């Protein structure tokens, strides 16, 4: 960890992050002072039992939700305290998303969906990258199809391509295989893995599936809103062991 800090600045870093929902008796501490950083060019998984705060952590890291206290940095930019306009711009330029339920726009074709973030930001697409990404995820012959004409796995591949196309500083993936059968899920995870290896992409993935987590370089574990442990170079077995220990 220390090495990573001195060699290259982390892509994402959170310090003393807390998040409280509700008032008075209904107060829920979703995050209780989380310190974590995610190295550039690394694939990190966030795991934890239901209600551990892993989704909340991701939302706060991605600027979709605002933390109650603490700081979040994406690269050299501090998110905490940014207004909606600046946050939106930051998402446009530095963050990619892959969601559990694909979330493609039904009116757009696969290609249009892939290019959507660039269009929104009014940026020129890197055509070489576009071709490479499309070929990697194997969507070349599906570009003119609309989401309703694609299988779930294909839709999620579109979503992955959409996240990659803008060369974001970090991609947040929220249970990207949650709605997929195991073969499609494995495909998606390989694409994510490949993009980290070949494109140097930084990926932070929330998952509850030990197999999915084993594709990552490192897994961090949350429980009751606190970072409890982490596993480097995980295998499904080590992840499962850790989970079982945490649940106990």
């Amino acid at each position, binding site marked *: 960890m220390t090495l990573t800090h001195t060699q290259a600045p982390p892509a994402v870093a959170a310090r003393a992050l807390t998040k409280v929902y509700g008032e008075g008796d209904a107060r829920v501490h979703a995050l209780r002072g989380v310190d974590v950083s995610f190295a550039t060019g690394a694939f990190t998984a966030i795991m934890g039992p239901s209600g551990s705060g892993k989704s909340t952590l991701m939302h706060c890291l991605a600027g979709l939700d605002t933390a109650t206290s603490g700081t979040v940095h994406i690269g050299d930019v501090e998110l905490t305290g940014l207004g909606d306009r600046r946050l939106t711009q930051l998402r446009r330029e530095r963050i990619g998303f892959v969601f559990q339920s694909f979330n493609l726009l039904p009116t757009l074709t696969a290609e249009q969906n892939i290019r*959507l973030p660039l269009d929104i930001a009014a940026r020129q697409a890197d055509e070489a990258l576009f071709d490479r990404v499309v070929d990697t995820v194997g969507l070349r012959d599906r570009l003119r199809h609309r989401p309703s004409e694609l299988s779930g796995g294909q839709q999620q591949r579109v979503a992955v391509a959409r996240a990659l196309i803008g060369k974001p500083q970090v991609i947040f993936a929220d249970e990207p295989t949650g709605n997929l059968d195991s073969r499609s899920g494995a495909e998606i995870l390989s694409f994510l893995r490949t993009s980290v290896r070949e494109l140097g992409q930084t990926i932070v993935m929330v998952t509850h599936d030990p197999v999915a987590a084993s594709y990552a370089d490192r897994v961090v574990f949350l429980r009751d809103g606190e970072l409890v442990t982490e596993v480097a170079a995980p295998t499904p077995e080590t992840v499962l062991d850790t989970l079982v220990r945490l649940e106990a």
Partner: protein
Amino acid sequence: MLRTALAGLRAHLMRLLLTSVAIVLGVGFITGTFVLNDTMEAGVAERVTADAGKVDVVVLPKTGVLPEEVLDRVRALPGVTEAQGLVRGGAPVLGKDGKTAGDFPTTAVSVVSGRLDRTNVVTGAGPGEDDRAAVLDENTAKAQGFRVGDTITVLDHEQNPHDFRLVGLIDTGVDQELGFTGAVGFTTDTARRMTGVKGYAEIDVAGADARAVAAAVGGAYTVKTGAELADDLARAAGVENQMITLGLLMFGLVAMFVAALVISNTFTILVAQRTREMALLRCIGATRGQVFGSVLLESAAVGLLASVAGLIAGYGLASLAITVLAALDSPLPTDAQAALTPPTVVAGLAVGLVVTVGSAVLPARSATRVPPVAALRDHAGEPAFRVGLVRCGIAALFLVAGLGTTAAGVFVLEPGQQVSLVVVMAGGVLTFLAVLVLGPVLVRPLSAFVGWVPRRMFGVPGRLAVDNAARNPKRAATTTVALTIGVTLMTLISVVTASTRLSLTVKLDEQFPIDYLLAGQSRDAVVPRSVAEELRGRPELDSVAQIRQVTARVSGERLSVGTFEGPVEPYVVAGSMAGFGPGEAALSELTAKALGVRVGDSVAIETRRAGTASLRVTALLDGNQSTLPPVTVAQGPFDAYFGAVPDARVMVNVRDGVPLERARAMVDAAAAPYPDVRVSSSTEIRGQFDETLDMVLMIITGLLGLAILISLFGIANTLSLSVHERTRESALLRALGLTRSQLRRMLSVEALVLGLIGALVGVVLGVVFGWAAMRAMLDGAVMSVPVARIVLFVALAGVAGVLAAVLPARRAARASIVGSLTPT
């Protein structure tokens, strides 16, 4: 099920409130119309009943007037305490400019005193026994700026001016004639002297019964009781009120139809959103009938509540209208208190309920088609829309029928007939139905068309918005058709008024190729020949033409017979007027047709001085264009037949280069000595036309505004529902970097596209049917499409659509991204 329906109602309160607005507005308008009608009728009844109470029996002439001796006979009857003859005849009041006031000669009436006095003096007093005193109706006094105490000048039947002291102002009440011409009241003697009428228009009797009076006067006269007279007066006034009421109800129906579309759309969307809820009900054992019933029940509750609100709104609207009308001194009877009568309440509630429940039937039926298993599915998905053959077939059927009917009305039937217009309108309704059925098919291409610019102007939000607009073609079609109705009617009215204006201007230019016209108030020949002779000598004038005419029997028909002096274009369509002279006559085509004569035939004219003259028809004239009388003879023979009749019209053209003000001053000076000779210019006449047309256009536009307003609520409603459905998509876009303002813009553009589609279809329909209606109404109509105004309509429809999107867009932009993305 009742509880479920009511719970549904509560849960969707906001949405249903928006829907209710449509019903409230429609019902309010209809109720308001009824209340206004009732109030005006009550006002009439109050007045006539008060009048009738004063009179026991009235004697009216069947034709002409009642001679003096009838009054003597009535007075001699036993039991008659009082009998008064009422004089009525023309007596033009002069305005402050020394010219006859108003467009028609004022009617002089006798004002009697005592119990038979039915004059309603509102300021000052009646003339009493003072032969130098006069009263004037309020409207004339106001228009001419006379006050009690002023001296007014009135022309007698020989055009001699007499001065009177204005002692009071009267209200002409429900008397249609007096309301139209204005009234000046004198003592009976003065009235008789001024009008030159020998006899009475009416004899009022007190203290006798109708049978005795009828026996005394004989069968040549009508005898009525006071109550019968009141009924007659009320009925005559009621006809006018009913016309207004019917006209207003037409607009009310249009508004209700639009409201029905909006309601139907809302319920369709509500049902679609509650697919899972409906399916759950089916899962736990609700029958199809119960699901159907619960949707209908919900609509009935909404309809009832909204109708009640509509009744209240209508009452307020009518009260406001009455107050405004009263403040404007409108001739409508406005003194009664506005009242909600039971029939009005029943009608308002019935219309609101029937329309609401009726509009919800189709959506309710589709609710019954939800299979129970839908409760277990995650997402119902958007209904796929396919262009059905049945739909296209039905639309084609309507379209062919509609256009065929319209074409028949335009090309086959004779223009100017009422039936042609009715046929064209029927064709319009059929064509509109075709558009209604075809709407969902048209929406996609139309949105691509109107979305061309926004797609390029507004970047990604624009592109997405245009796609979204046509995403659910059925919904988009219903939403936009509601707007189409209003825009169609507005465009149609604009085209018709603009074309009428142009047609009249063209006709005016043809018929009135003159700078100034000198003529009397009515068609009487009142311009002394010396006026034209004096003008003819002026070097500033290019031409002076005179028309004189009298009414005479021609081959048994009473027609206008006249002649001309000076340059007049006759517009000969058959025969020739070359060497027109004694023994010859020129007839307008229409007159020749009516008399059944052709060029070469002869007609017999009963003259005043030369017995019956037989004349040969040498020419037929185009009556639409020619300014000559229907039967025209040469000038010499005319004088021999009818004597030195004054001119009816003198038409003056100014020489080029002469300043118009100077010419006008000269013509005015020539006419000044004759109070009943009025000078008008073609510009003034055109100005009057324009004013009238503008007024009509303004009123109709205002009334149609209601339908447009309702359709805007429809757009707002559809959008807010779409926003609701696409919460997740919006959140995704925000996550991908769409700013709040871009999201708002996206929805605004969607509304803009919807508004423009509606307006565009409306403009096309409006222009086509405006043209057809014009062709059917007026022979030789000249078409004019008020492009600027129509562009304005389209732009306003777009702007209105954007305004309708403000609230839904704000809501969408405020939604939290995390909350919306997380599946619930």
